[in-house]
């Protein structure tokens, strides 16, 4: 068959297909006369493209069919995403499962973070020089102002507005740190290791300094409530980041490219869950932690949240028949 007769025979279908695509692609999503014809027209365009390529009907025709096929493919294979059910499955099953699935990396990150943290807290008992050199003059001054002997004993903030600002600050700052810890992993784990160790040492130094030089009661009763979610989220973000980096360092049977894509998929639940945990922490830290309550209440709530979080990560989503695939 000659090219011109091939074009004449196909043109009507192609034009109809293209008009249909145009309507469906438009921002408002105009109604189409008979949508059930779309798959048929799409398959027709696919087979025409194959024929045109095989018979070498020239670039302009194949390019045109190529573009029709791509546009149709994109429309037909557009993923649909039911949000509410997805969230339920995610928090009930996917997230805690994927933390457990990478338990070894999780413990490695625990070590990276808590190692530095505890080292700082312990070192301050014998010699405060380490903590002082980590924090520096300005930061120690700031800690003195907030937690020092002359700082107000209870509520640091008194009105809702400043609560809200602090909440936003925690969302902005702490979730960004989660994201950076995760993303840094792609640099052969180095970014993740840096952020985990750095944050461990830095937070440990601040804790040690306050314990040593300020009024620790106010500090501990402030951090008790949100500490579980915030700190564990950091460790879990790090686990995700390490997954990315290790996929490049140790791709196993895949090519590095495939391993990385796979790691991107498996680590996504970790960073999403971690950022949600940090969000919860920001809510607690912003609106509750500074409330003028009895420290005993704050400590008990803090311990309750730690137990709740550990129980969630250990037990949630065990057993039962999965309703949908994990780690989409």
């Amino acid at each position: 068959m000659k090219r011109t007769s091939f074009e004449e025979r196909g043109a009507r279908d192609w034009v109809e297909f293209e008009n249909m695509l145009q309507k469906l692609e438009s921002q408002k999503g105009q109604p189409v006369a008979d949508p059930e014809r779309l798959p048929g027209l799409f398959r027709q365009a696919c087979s025409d493209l194959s024929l045109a390529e095989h018979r070498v009907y020239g670039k302009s025709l194949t390019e045109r069919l190529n573009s029709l096929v791509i546009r149709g493919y994109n429309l037909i294979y557009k993923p649909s995403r039911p949000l509410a059910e997805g969230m339920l499955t995610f928090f009930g099953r996917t997230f805690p499962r994927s933390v457990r699935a990478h338990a070894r990396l999780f413990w490695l990150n625990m070590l990276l973070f808590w190692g530095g943290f505890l080292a700082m807290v312990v070192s301050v008992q014998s010699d405060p020089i380490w903590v002082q050199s980590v924090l520096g003059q300005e930061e120690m001054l700031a800690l003195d102002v907030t937690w020092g002997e002359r700082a107000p004993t209870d509520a640091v903030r008194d009105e809702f507005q400043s609560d809200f600002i602090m909440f936003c600050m925690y969302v902005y700052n702490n979730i960004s740190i989660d994201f950076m810890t995760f993303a840094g992993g792609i640099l052969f784990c180095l970014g993740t290791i840096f952020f985990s160790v750095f944050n461990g040492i830095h937070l440990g130094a601040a804790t040690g300094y306050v314990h040593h030089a300020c009024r620790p009661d106010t500090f501990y009763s402030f951090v008790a409530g949100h500490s579980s979610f915030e700190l564990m989220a950091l460790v879990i973000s790090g686990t995700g980041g390490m997954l990315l980096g290790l996929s490049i360092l140790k791709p196993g049977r895949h090519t590095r490219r495939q391993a990385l894509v796979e790691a991107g998929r498996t680590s996504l639940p970790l960073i999403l869950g971690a950022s949600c945990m940090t969000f919860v922490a920001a809510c607690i830290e912003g609106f509750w932690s500074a409330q003028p309550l009895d420290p005993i209440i704050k400590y008990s709530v803090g311990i309750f949240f730690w137990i709740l979080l550990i129980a969630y990560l250990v037990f949630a989503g065990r057993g039962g028949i999965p309703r949908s695939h994990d780690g989409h």
Partner: protein
Amino acid sequence: MELTNREERLDTQQRIELAEGVNISLRVAGLPVRFLAYVIDYLICGGIILGAAFVLSIIGIATGSFGMVGIMLLLWFIVRWFYNVPFELGKRGATPGKRAMKIRVMQTTGTPVTVGQSLVRNLLRFVDEMPTFLATFPLVPTYLFGSVAIVCGKRFQRLGDLAAGTIVIYDDERLPAASTLHVPTASSSPPSPAQGAYAQPQPQPPPIPPQPIPPRFPLHREEQVAFTGFRERLPLWSEARRMEIADHLTPLTGKTGPAAVDEVINIGAWLDETR
């Protein structure tokens, strides 16, 4: 369309096989066009932030409250990490900057990106944009890491693209509309004003009509496409350029200058008409 050694090809076509068993080709977008798209998006983000800061500070002054600072922080957080996500999941698969440059984001399989992929590639932007200056408010990224990754890979993927399994390709809007299905061949009228931009100096109309002659040498599939393509694109070139291209074939055709051009056109015409 096979070529004996695909590594030697210079174009940016990516062949992808769909579930329907058909091969499509995608043209991946390189560094310069992605850079321009990014600049546009960067300016839009800056505009959003500055505009919001202006409006919110007026509201803040009018009501005497400081809560607007918090809203500003939230907005900056969202814009910084998630500006791209809703656009990439939209019908066009492209941010305003990418739309302006006629490129879009896709999976390497040729399908639109999923939520997860879009999140991964935008979270990893943090690494791609390294090293950054002034890492807090007026973020000035250099995109050194991302650029190196783009330049090194065959598919022009930055690190976020690699981890998410996505590519940035040229959108197809630029292809001819339905009315131009019958492309102008050598024998048709001189180029329309729309094509004039490509055709400087104004080309002479080619000798008409071509006398189809069979090639005196065997031609691969790819080479046949080159011959017919020469004929299709003829109106875009000046006479000198046509001769320059046709002269490359002198060892085969045994002709130079205008005669070589005619020869190539005639062979192309023969190929077009006999299939």
